[in-house]
């Protein structure tokens, strides 16, 4: 079965000489929920722009479900739905028209386009707003409108470029649930996001891009398995006069009521608490210092860059 997305040696050099992509290879399996992560300016949006035919590539090849984007452009485009990072609909058009017109661009007859628009606008909680001018929607609604528009031709591959940026947590959670559902129904999803807990929660596979190169491409499970050390933040019952020394763990002072303790993968948490009790440190509560993926992401990007 062909890959949902396959990039081979894709390069992009902008007119000003900036080399945005340095020959990337990437495969996404059908049905996958795939994260494409990277710092700002790493090449994520350029990659997505090339796949969506919004940016001309300099070299290499792109195929979507086996259709080469140069040789079978129409077939490749028909397989793809895009939710871009920036709002890119006409704010002076009613919501329903934006979705219906997009269906029309893919050759879907108008009556069927209205039926599909109703389906997806209802799914995404926008049906009541169908006659409103798109510019009057809230930020979260605009994002959902772009998702409805991207889905109206029922693409096999959906690419979402930071779909939850600036969206409140309630709407973000409902969008996650919706994306999980359409992925479970068989649609391949590629997601870029700066909320790494979003990628960790949703995606099964991941690629990290930095400075125009793929620096990691693996399963989420395997990537998280690389994390050797986690940092726990400990809230203490009484103030400490000095930093305790523990035989098996490194601890750091945050303030008189808070400590940070590093715990290796092979260490036992029980041992940490035994050591803390021996040092007469009473812990009220604990939490992870940061998102695990965030920590890995920072490590990988740091390692990739010349010191």
């Amino acid at each position: 079965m062909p890959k949902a997305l396959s990039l081979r040696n894709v390069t992009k050099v902008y007119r000003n000489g900036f080399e945005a992509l340095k020959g990337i290879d990437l495969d996404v399996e059908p049905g996958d929920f795939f994260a494409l992560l990277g710092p700002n300016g790493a090449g994520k949006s350029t990659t997505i722009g090339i796949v969506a035919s919004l940016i001309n590539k300099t070299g290499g090849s792109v195929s979507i479900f086996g259709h080469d984007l140069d040789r079978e452009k129409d077939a490749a485009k028909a397989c793809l739905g895009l939710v871009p990072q920036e709002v890119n609909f006409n704010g002076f058009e009613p919501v329903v028209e934006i979705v219906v017109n997009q269906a029309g661009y893919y050759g879907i007859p108008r009556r069927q386009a209205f039926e599909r628009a109703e389906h997806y606008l209802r799914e995404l909680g926008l049906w009541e707003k169908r006659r409103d001018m798109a510019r009057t929607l809230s930020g979260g609604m605009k994002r959902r409108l772009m998702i409805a528009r991207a889905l109206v031709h029922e693409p096999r591959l959906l690419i979402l470029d930071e779909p939850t940026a600036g969206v409140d947590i309630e709407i973000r959670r409902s969008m996650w649930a919706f994306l999980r559902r359409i992925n479970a129904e068989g649609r391949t999803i590629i997601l870029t996001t700066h909320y790494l807990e979003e990628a960790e929660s949703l995606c099964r596979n991941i690629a990290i891009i930095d400075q125009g190169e793929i620096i990691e491409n693996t399963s989420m499970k395997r990537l998280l398995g690389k994390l050797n050390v986690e940092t726990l933040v400990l809230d203490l019952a009484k103030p400490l006069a000095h930093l305790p020394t523990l035989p098996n763990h490194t601890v750091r002072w945050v303030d008189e009521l808070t400590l940070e303790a590093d715990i290796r993968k092979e260490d036992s948490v029980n041992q940490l608490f035994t050591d803390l009790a021996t040092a007469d440190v009473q812990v009220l509560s604990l939490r992870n210092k940061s998102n695990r993926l965030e920590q890995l992401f920072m490590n990988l990007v740091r390692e990739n860059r010349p010191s």
Partner: protein
Amino acid sequence: MSLRRNLIALQTIVIKEVLRFSRIWLQTVFPPMITTALYFIIFGGLIGARIGEMDGLRYMDFIVPGLIMMAIITNSYANVVSSFYGSKFQHHIEEMMVAPIPNYLIILGFVAGGVARGLTVGVAVTIVSLFFSPFSMHSLGVTLSVVVLTSTLFALAGLINGIFAKSFDDISIIPTFVLTPLTYLGGVFYSISLLPEFWQGMSHLNPILYMVNAFRYGLLGVTDINLWLSYAIILGFIAALFTFSLYLLNKGHGIRN
């Protein structure tokens, strides 16, 4: 399958374009009616009464075809340049770029929108003209074909302006400094036979002269120019502008990095 898909895509662009200018009719259809009424009152009525006849016609009757054609030209052009630049500015041109629509269909869709506005304004201005001049139709075929071909030509020109435009200033420079002077000097208000020989010759370099005269022939049966030459020039310009705009879109000029 592909033909049907393409026809639906074209229909969608045309509907979108027609709805766009219809929704803002107060900015798109109504102003040319007011402007043309003023031209009729001031030039046709007040000044024209002192001018007398032009090419054997009452001056008011002589300027009717030119004024209708002027409204058609400026509105066909303005519709496409503002719509295409607007879609670039707001990035919703990307809606078409991600879809499997051939570039020639994007051109046809935008041009059809421009022609639709040109024709709508043409009909509206013609209705206004009936208050000042009796309706006359020498040849329906010539009139309709010249209107459609001329608005197609200027819709294509507006599209090319929209493709090149990088700011709102860029979409007003050509209409102000090229289109308006050429239209005024294209025999809207006078017969070129009034001009000295040198300026008559120079006027023949102005393509709008051919369109105004062909249209005047369609309505009134009088023209300064050979009708078939007018058709040849209009069709030649359409072919050249279509080819150029297709080349620009295929290259992604102004829309694709």
